[in-house]
Structures are given as structure tokens and as C-alpha cells.
């Protein structure tokens, strides 16, 4: 491919839909296991930390610690699910099974495939967000209509980390490569975005760094929503998430073209 055709903006068409649908059909075969996996982990954290640690710390940021950590879990799980989908699952389809190769021999372009995978990452994030939201509500929190807005937020978080995952996917020589992403991106994101404790508990310089993390902006939207309040600075938070999403998606498209169309 020439440099110009690699840099070209993504060419989109409605042809991505059957590719997205293919992923949905595969997911449906394993839906129960997948949903259980989505719920079990965050539920354990919520119970153990929420009630265990929660009994020591009491209320945090105007909500019970279980609800506090539960909201963090919603965003965290959207991040995990979509990162995993963009890396391990996409890599299986692209490299191991050569599914993408089969698809681009049909009248579907590689740009459509990457777009479908990206939207699929967001879709999976919504699924896990939904599952955890239901758990939180079963535990007696977040009984407000505004909490439903956490679902589209989950989609946005999914687009953000799905796109970052797809960047890694386009660069990966093998599955082991994805460990870097967990160490360098996911873990700091978990610890410094306010999932387990408020960001303002950290020294000012660290809090400032956290301000650059997309997960922090997602959590800043989710917590007020869970309490039934409109979050402040929504536009800034959404803008940060969108900026990460689209920038990473564009990079992912370019790198995938470079990898496969040669």
C-alpha cells in the first residue's frame, strides 16, 4: 500500500453490519458464560471491598462505599470487556482464524471490518455495563432513571478502550504482546482513575495526571448519575472520551491497513 492510501480517512459503509452481526451470533452461542463472567468478578469485588472495606470507611463522596465502588466497577468492566475484545478476540479473528481475510474477499472492505469490530467492542461494553448495573440495583442502589444514562456511557468507554485495544491488535506479533497494555495502561487506569477511592485523595500532581486518564472522566460522569444528579462538566468529560476514541480508532485503521493490505 502507498503511504497515502494508508493515511486516508476511514471509508465507511453500511456493509459493516453483517460483520458486527457475525460477532453477535458467535457471542449468542456463549452468552450465558459470558454474562456470568461479566457479573461474577465485579460482584465479588463489590461484596468484599464494598462491605468489608466499606465498614471501615463509611460514606465516600456522598454515597455508601458499596455504591461508590459499584459505580467504579461499571466503568472498569466496560474498560476490561472492550480492551479484551479489541485485543484477544480481535486477534483471534484477524490472525489465528483468518476470519477478516475471508471477509475482505467478500464485498466488504478492511475499513468496514475494523469499524465493525470497534462498534462491537462498544456493544460488548454495554452488555457488561447492563449486567453490573442490574447487580447494583439488586443491592439497593442507583434507583434513578438517570442511572440508565450509564449505558450509553458504557458504550463510549467501550469505543475508547476498544479502539486502544485494536491499536495493540494491529501491532501484536502474538497474544503475549497484550500484557504490555495491561501493565502500562489498564493497571494505572484502575488505580488512578478513582475506581476504589476518590482521585482528590491523591497528591495534587498525581491528581493532575489522573485528569488525563479517560477512565477518570467516565467515572466522573457515572457517579453523579448513580446518585440521580446531572454531572458537572459533562461536555469536557465526553469530549475527552470521544477524542481518545476517535484518535485511537484512526490509528488502529491505519495500522491494520499497513499490516493486512500488502
Amino acid at each position: 500500500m502507498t503511504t497515502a492510501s494508508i493515511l486516508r480517512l476511514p471509508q465507511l459503509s453500511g456493509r459493516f453490519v453483517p460483520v458486527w452481526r457475525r460477532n453477535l451470533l458467535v457471542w449468542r452461542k456463549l452468552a450465558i458464560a459470558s454474562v456470568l463472567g461479566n457479573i461474577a468478578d465485579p460482584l465479588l469485588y463489590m461484596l468484599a471491598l464494598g462491605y468489608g472495606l466499606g465498614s471501615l470507611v463509611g460514606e465516600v463522596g456522598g454515597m455508601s462505599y458499596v455504591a461508590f465502588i459499584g459505580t467504579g466497577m461499571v466503568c472498569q468492566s466496560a474498560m476490561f470487556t472492550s480492551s479484551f475484545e479489541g485485543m484477544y478476540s480481535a486477534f483471534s479473528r484477524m490472525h489465528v482464524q483468518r476470519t477478516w481475510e475471508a471477509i475482505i474477499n467478500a464485498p466488504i472492505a478492511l475499513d468496514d471490518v475494523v469499524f465493525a469490530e470497534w462498534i462491537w467492542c462498544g456493544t460488548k461494553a454495554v452488555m457488561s455495563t447492563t449486567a453490573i448495573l442490574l447487580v447494583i440495583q439488586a443491592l439497593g442502589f442507583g434507583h434513578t432513571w438517570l442511572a440508565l444514562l450509564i449505558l450509553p456511557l458504557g458504550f463510549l468507554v467501550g469505543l475508547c478502550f476498544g479502539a486502544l485495544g485494536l491499536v495493540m491488535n494491529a501491532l501484536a506479533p502474538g497474544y503475549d504482546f497484550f500484557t504490555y497494555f495491561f501493565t502500562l495502561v489498564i493497571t494505572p487506569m484502575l488505580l488512578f482513575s478513582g475506581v476504589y477511592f476518590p482521585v482528590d485523595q491523591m497528591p495534587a500532581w498525581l491528581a493532575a495526571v489522573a485528569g488525563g486518564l479517560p477512565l477518570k472522566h467516565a467515572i466522573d460522569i457515572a457517579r453523579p448519575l448513580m446518585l440521580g444528579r446531572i454531572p458537572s462538566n459533562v461536555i469536557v468529560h465526553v469530549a475527552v472520551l470521544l477524542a481518545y476514541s476517535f484518535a485511537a480508532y484512526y490509528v488502529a485503521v491505519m495500522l491494520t491497513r499497513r499490516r493486512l493490505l500488502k
Partner: protein
Amino acid sequence: MNDGAATIERPARTAPAPSGAPVLHVHELRKRYGELEVVRGLSFDIRRGECFALLGPNGAGKTTTLRCCLGLIDPDGGAIELVGEPVPRAAREARIRVGVVPQMDNLDPDFTVRENLLIYGGYFRIRRSVLDERIPRLLEFAGLAGKAQTSIRTLSGGMKRRLTLARALINDPELLILDEPTTGLDPQARHLIWDGLRQLLKQGKTILLTTHFMDEAERLATRLAVIDHGTMIACDTPQALLETHVEPEVVEVYGEDARAWATARGRALSNRLEIAGETAFCYATDAAPLLADLATHAGVRYLHRPANLEDLFIKLTGRELRD
């Protein structure tokens, strides 16, 4: 595979290219990777109803040529028209009417045999009712009629290839492109694939295949092109190529004494002589003098046979190994 099972009506939305126009037209195709030009001015036309084979050693540029023709990579020069559409500009429109059997199996392991065809048909936006009617016939054609609900993971290599062939026919393509369709298959499985392809040709389908198996080309191709280092060395019917390039008779002489006999006697009695390891290949218009001489040499074994495509291929591309 069953006779006539894959006779499939053309979907209403795709108009066939006017007959007479080539199904695939490639003109002065060029493609380079860095310093290396892997396709160097390749030109050929494929006419409706023929089976055109691209023959060449590994690295000759076969797969790159196919990928250019499908619009998956942009050529550096030249013009391609696939089923009447300019490629890469209208590659997507062209691929709607083309079927592809890739070199490596890429069936979807998460789906059953039938689901694989259904999902793939979805990529072409073929209506479900059309697919429901088409899929049983394709499965029968592929000899997989009883396997519709079987998981891909349990299929043998030959079954997977046949299903891949059926998948490539899901859109009733005007041109079927196969990249080394029988590499890695056992002889029984290869023959089944060849039977299937012959049936398709009988029904008037057009086929482009790449291969480095001479018997495959010999059995299937109505016309073949030998390419090496990205250029066309020869292109004609197998018969005409043999007549033009190779002496009609070959005597292969084996054994320890073969080399000594070839230097002392064989060279003078052949039109052309090649020695590879412990075998001497004597090419001749008339092999009678060779055979008479060999009859007096007890120390060598020999085989007298008509020239075939392998001889042609070796003559045109040389004996050295390609990796």
C-alpha cells in the same frame, strides 16, 4: 460431489458482463515492495467459460497478482478490469460477482457448516430466502449434505476445502478464483476438488487458479500462463505450450551409471539433456535411438514417457530451488 447439484440461478441484481468481454483483464500490472518489483508488467485476459491457470514457482508473484485483481492491494502500475469493473476503484462492486477460495482455510470455527454459508452469504447481502434455497444444493455439491449441523472443528482437511469451495459459490460468481486449492490435501481429497471444479466448468463457470502442481494444471486448465519473477514466460493451451517449448518424448535414466552414460552416449542421441542428481533427462523428437542404446547398457534403469507440463515448467523456470 453430485452431478449438476450446483446449478444456481443468477441473482437478479447482478447483470453479467457482456459476453465477449474478458471476465478478467490485466494489463501491464506492476507491484513493488521496497526495492523488489514482484510483478513486472504482467498482462493477460480470461475469457468466459475457460479455466485459466497461473503457474509459477514460489515467489513468482502469483498471490500478489490475485490480491491486486481483487483490489486488496493497490498496484503500482497497469490496469485491471474484473467482471467489467475497474479495480481497485470499483473493487467492491467487482467482488460482489466473484468467488474466492484462499490458499489457507479460513472457515469460521465458531459456526456449523451451514452457518458458515449463511453468514458468508450475509456479507454479500443475499436474501435469507435465497440462501435457504441455495445452501442445501451447495452442501450437496460439496458432498457435505449430511453435515449441515456439524461443527467446523470436526471436519477433515478435505471437507474443509470443499466447504470453502461451496462458500465461494454462495453468490453464484461469474469468476471463481482459487489460490492453490489443493495444497496440503491427500490424493483422494484432491481428486474430489478436481471433480467439483470440472463440474463447474461444464456448467459454464469461469475459473482462475494458481498452482504449482503440474497435474492439477494439466487436468483442469484450458489455458495456462507460466510466470516467474513477476513476468509472463509463456501463455497458451497446455498442448500448444508443450508443442512449442518441449521435445515430445522424454527418457529418464536413473542409477549410479546414469551420469556416465549420459555424458558418453545420451548427449549425442538427445536433442537436449539435463542431469539432476542421479537422473538424466533426455529430451528427444524421436526416442528410438536412445532406447536402442539403453538396451545395450545393463547398468541403468530408464523410463520412456511423453513430455508433460512438468518438463515445460522446469525448462521455463529452471531446476534450482525456490524458497
